[in-house]
């Protein structure tokens, strides 16, 4: 088919977004607007949604270049809380490093790190109440760690071993921890968004005081589920916090393929008439403050909030990904918002509440903590070394009760097991 030309009208052209830097390119981040810390107004939590809309285009920051906390968004946390935050973020990183290595050593099939994004899960988890329900995506292991979920349980899940509470069914890192207010993770992107709204609506219907919070990557905001969730939350004024973790990359696709060239992700809130905040995702204090603001707002029936965490995915998408194929290695090094762990550490040092020596000692301690949890979990087996779950478990939970076809198939599976793996005695 050839294009029709009409007089001297110019031919139309298609715009296909292109990231600024590809492998080998020199990185120049001067196009990223970074306002000074403390310069953003903090409207009242009860304000109308439109009062927050300037914040959708701004960047809420608390930690300044001098590592001091400034401005109206300073959550004024005490040193003890700050140290706990630092420790939880560092533990999350230590955990990621160990699990990544575990995958490389063949102990499991898959892993996903959140390096550089620790603040976007740890700080919100600390600002929420322990019984608020979270609907995470797959890069919020920091929430479980913040809520004190046992590392051994996390590793059991990752190893799909016999102590895995999910019975070896889920892909590694797709945890579920109802007792910790942590909704079961789906591999299908964005599905948690409307579900979080539904939970929040239910909480409101029941006159409960608990709110819901949910996380999504910027790439996944393109899914229809994201937009349905926003519409429902706006219509019913649901007590929910929408977190968009804008880590710049969705596998190999930069944020431009989710529309970042035209508007910020926080600005999605404007069209729906809900509150929105764009926050420096590598500033744990700013992230904490934004969540606290949104939680207070939701809890007082003032409505939902969308928080965009502007951050950077420092590692590959997953263990199946090699980012060197599609982006400049320099991006990570030059990321202008720094490393959230380092920034918090410097802040505590500036306050005289911490030191490099304490940090080094803590890091050693955390490595040991993760190592011993790993050892503990390994006692329950690793993926591929043994069939850790009785075969009948495969047929459980499909329905509440086992129908005839699954009974038959369960017997078939057990029969096959005796033939295929005679060395395993239990059914």
């Amino acid at each position, binding site marked *: *088919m050839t294009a029709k030309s009409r007089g001297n009208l110019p031919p139309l*052209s*298609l715009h*296909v*977004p*292109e990231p600024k830097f*590809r492998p080998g390119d020199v990185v120049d981040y001067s196009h990223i607007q970074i306002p000074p810390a403390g310069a953003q107004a903090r409207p009242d939590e009860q304000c109308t949604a439109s009062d927050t809309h300037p914040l959708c285009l701004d960047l809420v920051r608390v930690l300044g270049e001098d590592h001091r906390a400034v401005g109206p968004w300073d959550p004024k946390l005490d040193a003890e809380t700050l140290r706990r935050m630092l420790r939880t973020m560092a533990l999350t990183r230590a955990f990621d490093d160990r699990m990544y290595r575990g995958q490389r050593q063949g102990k499991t*099939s*898959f892993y996903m790190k959140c390096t550089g994004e620790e603040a976007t899960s740890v700080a919100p988890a600390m600002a929420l109440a322990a019984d608020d329900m979270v609907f995470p995506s797959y890069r919020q292991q920091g929430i479980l760690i913040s809520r004190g979920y046992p590392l051994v349980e996390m590793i059991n899940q990752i190893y*799909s*071993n016999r102590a*895995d509470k999910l*019975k*070896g*069914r*889920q*892909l*590694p890192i*797709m945890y579920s921890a109802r007792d910790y207010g942590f909704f079961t993770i*789906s*591999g*299908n*992107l*964005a599905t948690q968004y409307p579900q979080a709204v539904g939970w929040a609506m239910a909480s409101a219907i029941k006159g409960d005081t608990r709110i819901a919070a949910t996380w999504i990557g910027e*790439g*996944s905001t*393109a*899914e*229809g*589920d994201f937009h349905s969730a926003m519409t429902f939350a706006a219509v019913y004024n649901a007590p929910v916090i929408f977190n968009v973790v804008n880590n710049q990359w*969705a*596998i*190999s*696709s930069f944020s431009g*393929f*989710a*529309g970042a060239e035209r508007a910020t992700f926080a600005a999605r809130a404007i069209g729906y008439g809900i509150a929105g905040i764009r926050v420096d995702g590598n500033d744990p204090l700013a992230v904490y403050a934004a969540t606290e603001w949104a939680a207070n707002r939701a809890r007082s029936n003032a409505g939902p909030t969308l928080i965009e965490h502007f951050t950077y995915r420092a590692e590959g998408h997953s263990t*199946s*990904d090699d980012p060197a*194929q*599609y982006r400049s290695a320099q991006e990570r090094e030059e990321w202008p918002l720094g490393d959230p762990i380092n920034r918090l550490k410097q802040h505590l040092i500036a306050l005289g509440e911490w030191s490099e020596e304490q940090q080094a000692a803590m890091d050693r301690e955390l490595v040991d903590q993760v190592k011993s949890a790993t050892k503990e979990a390994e006692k329950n087996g690793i*993926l591929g070394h043994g*069939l*850790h*779950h009785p*075969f009948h*478990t*495969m*047929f459980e939970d*499909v329905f509440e009760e086992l129908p005839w*076809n*699954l009974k038959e*198939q369960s017997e*078939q*599976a057990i*029969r*096959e*097991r005796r*033939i*295929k793996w005679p060395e395993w005695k239990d059914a």
Partner: protein
Amino acid sequence: MTYEESPVSLSEAPTRRLNMIEAINDALDIMMERDPNVVVMGEDVGYFGGVFRATAGLQKKHGKTRVFDTPISECGIIGVAVGMGAYGLRPVPEIQFADYIYPGLDQLVSEAARLRYRSAGEFIAPMTVRSPFGGGIFGGQTHSQSPEAMFTHVAGLKTVVPSNPHDAKGLLIAAIEDNDPVIFFEPKRIYNGPFNGYYDKPVEPWSRHADSVVPEGYYSIPLGKARIVRPGNAFTVLAYGTMVHVAAAVCAEKGVDAEIIDLRTLVPLDIETVEKSVEKTGKCLIVHEATRTSGFGAELSALVQERCFYHLEAPIERVTGFDTPYPHSLEWAYFPGPVRIGEAIDRLTKA
């Protein structure tokens, strides 16, 4: 636009040995070269070449407006493809994993599949939705499903499942040329090599497999034509995708003289080849990886029963995955492997 016959007969064409990913890439490349209306789109397919690298190099060669990354929005990807088809393009969207086709389901089922019907032929949606499917790679329940039956249930869609590099190339070319929407499910377990059903027993790689001999340049394999992988008399095996290899390996191991049929396309189905074979052998074994209940095997079984009843000498055997989601750590227990197939063969042989 109509397409001419293959310019060279296959026996004359020089050949290459390709794995399945390379064959798919080759087919896309050839079709993009032959027809400027062919566009390739999907999550990560552009610069990076797709998470399985099936589109590697295509953007560099054919440009950014013909091979491009899309937002992560399956309803967007398929809905946009419907509009492109209506304009006159031939989009080849990729859905990164078949498990993620569901957000795009409405566009596929209610729109693409019925565009021709509801507009009395004024508009068509000549798209080929490519998607890796099936298990065996420790992908857990969201990277392992075989949802083909769901699509065969939809009037107006064609469903294709290649089982080797040679067919993958020819079938993909035919699918792209087809004026109807086609779902092209690529069995990811055999992207890089065939599979015998034993996760711990190696098989010869594609580089030494006869079905990896792929003619250079353009050729197509018509949709709706099954392939007799191996003629035989004891019973008929109906399979597609990865399970063709597994079933063939088990039959060989058991030394049974089975006639193995690779269906290649589920819709349109080559009922003639199926009928002829079952009439000859009098017995039928159906093998697929998808969940059993209402799986495509149920349709095959009903058809064979309706059309070959008086030739049947034994009950039709169905070997399938279980009626559960795909379990991560027990995936080799879920997989319809040699034991499950072997038992069915024993029953058929004894009958």
